[in-house]
């Protein structure tokens, strides 16, 4: 990424490293996210994606390196600090309470008027949020248990928007979803981009990455292994960067299939 883009970046990481005991989980990671940009972080299992998310969401502090948020150098010691800065994280398991309804989940921990809950204002605000995301949730008074996977993902994303964040981190947002629901969530990601948020999306799914991301950052064994503009790169190139070789299990497989087809 060129240096003149630096000023637009809402979030920049420089030289982030993190070790757990003898294992270097992340070494010298750089990452830039601009407002209105979707950055996909891809990598194999153990590449350090989750660790990076945890550093950004304040679960683990980094050992070294610099985090620049809104052109200020910041530290993110706790999840609450990340929230205050304006970094919202939607975890893979969504962290919703199934026994509570949509409104109660959206406002969990940040209810309006703690001693006499303002249900009306919370319901109005819930509908506003869901409409902004064009969410297809028929009623906000049903327990979350009765919603589909895509609807739950929507609720989780809507909840992260409640604090007006600048950056939103989606951890495997489509991992457990069907075809239609995946499309719904991808639409949602595009709507987040239109609203001018920086979106970091962790994904294993090349099709999803190609579909919505602007930039793909590849991690391999805890190091940067290339940042690509999504329009200039093929899935094969990304996979090559993920696995670290053009000759890998995936390409061999495809080559075999091609041979099989042609013969």
């Amino acid at each position, binding site marked *: 990424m060129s240096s003149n883009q630096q000023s637009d970046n809402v979030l920049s990481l420089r030289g982030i490293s993190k070790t757990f005991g003898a294992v270097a989980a992340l070494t010298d990671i750089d990452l830039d996210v601009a407002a209105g940009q979707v950055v996909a972080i891809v990598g194999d299992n153990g590449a350090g994606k989750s660790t990076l998310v945890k550093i950004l969401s304040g679960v683990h502090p980094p050992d070294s390196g610099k985090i620049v948020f809104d052109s200020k150098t910041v530290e993110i010691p706790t999840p609450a600090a990340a929230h205050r800065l304006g970094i919202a994280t939607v975890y893979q398991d969504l962290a919703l309470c199934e026994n509570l309804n949509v409104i109660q989940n959206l406002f969990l921990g940040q209810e309006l008027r703690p001693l006499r809950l303002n249900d*009306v204002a919370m319901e109005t605000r819930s509908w506003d949020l869901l409409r902004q995301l064009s969410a297809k949730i028929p009623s906000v008074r049903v327990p979350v248990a009765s919603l589909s996977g895509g609807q739950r993902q929507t609720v989780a994303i809507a909840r992260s928007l409640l604090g007006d964040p600048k950056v939103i981190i989606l951890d495997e947002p489509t991992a457990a979803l069907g075809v239609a629901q995946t499309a719904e969530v991808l639409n949602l990601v595009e709507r987040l981009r239109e609203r001018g948020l920086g979106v970091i999306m962790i994904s294993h799914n090349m099709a999803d990455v190609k579909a919505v991301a602007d930039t793909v950052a590849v991690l391999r064994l805890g190091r940067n292994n290339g940042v690509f503009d999504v329009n200039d790169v093929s899935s094969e190139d990304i996979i090559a960067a993920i696995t670290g070789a053009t000759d890998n299990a995936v390409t061999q497989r495809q080559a075999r299939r091609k041979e099989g087809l042609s013969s």
Partner: protein
Amino acid sequence: MSTTVKNTATDRQDERLRSREGLRGAISDVVERARGGDLGVIPVVVGLIVIWSVLQILNPVFLSSANLVNLTLESAAVGVIALGIVCVLLVGQIDLSVGSVSGLSSAVLAVLFVSQGLPIWVAILGAVLMGAVVGWVYAQLFNRFGVPSFVISMAGLLAFLGLQLYVLGSKGSINLPFDSGLVNFAQLSFVPDWLSYTFAVVAAVWLFVSGYLHASERRRAGLSSKSTSMLAIRSAVLLAVLAFVVWYLGQTRGIGWMFVFFVGMVLVMHYLLSRTKWGRSVYAVGGNVEAARRAGINVKAVYTSVFVLCSSFAAVGGILAAARLAAANQSSGGGDINLNAIAAAVIGGTSLFGGRGTAFGALLGIIVIQSISSGLTLLNLDSSIRFVVTGVVLLLAVVVDSIARKSRTSHGRA
């Protein structure tokens, strides 16, 4: 989108929603919810009707005004304890020591008041404070060491029984003077008829006014709301039921202040659980602890508040029981009190799995439990059979809870 959307309330715009209005809509909503396993208070009401019918057939005295007055007075002490159990069950934990804590509280009250000669309010405060400390210790053990709550409270069950015996000393029994205000409150003070009717009217009017204000606030915000006629019908039904209860109990002694105290506690807990941030966090912790923690809820504080509340309610229950008996002795808080309190909470619809239940459940549940106990006493059956029947009813309640849970899962309401 056409103009019809503009006239539809914000929460009613999705075309998949079937709109149901008026009384018929409300009734079909309830039926639908029950089919989906969201039973609410239906099982306990049905159970109550069955139990009352059977017991009335077996002994015509059962539904007499005098016996029902007695029943309300008997239910207050264990009912208050059950209220605490509801809170603990809501966060998915259990307190098995409420019986012992209530017995210890009786003993502490009697010793402070009678043996030490302190003023009654100091004795009451001392007993409740003791309960709060017990709950706080449980919470520390639970939060710091992660010991399962049923083990902690089982240890407490034994330890506090021992402490109760120690506090009572060699005599083993302390009588509370009959002329003390506390005994008078529990045994002899009844609400005058006019005041009972006033309570009934105030409750109905309050239900209507608060409902009306809420509905108009929702209308202003462009949300769907209950119609005024529905609110009026609801209030009228409540008024009729309350007035009938007051009239029927008024045939003999009327409504005891102790029962009013219990109902007051239920209303306070209902408000705290359903209308405050604390209540929300209690349900959230019971539903998904990890989600609650990530939402920024101080989970340990919630556990602490709930354990303290439960033990304090147990202590208050012990005070009421001592006042009712006019004595504290070695069997105070013993026997079936522990299980009755838990059974009342579960029968009242509080899930053993956490996150589901209401304060009113404790009220309904304890009336079922006390009905069984009172009915069987009237039939001159001894406690062996009473234990068996209560045990079976508890089992039935848990089975209904489990079936409803399965049904909720299959209907997507889990």
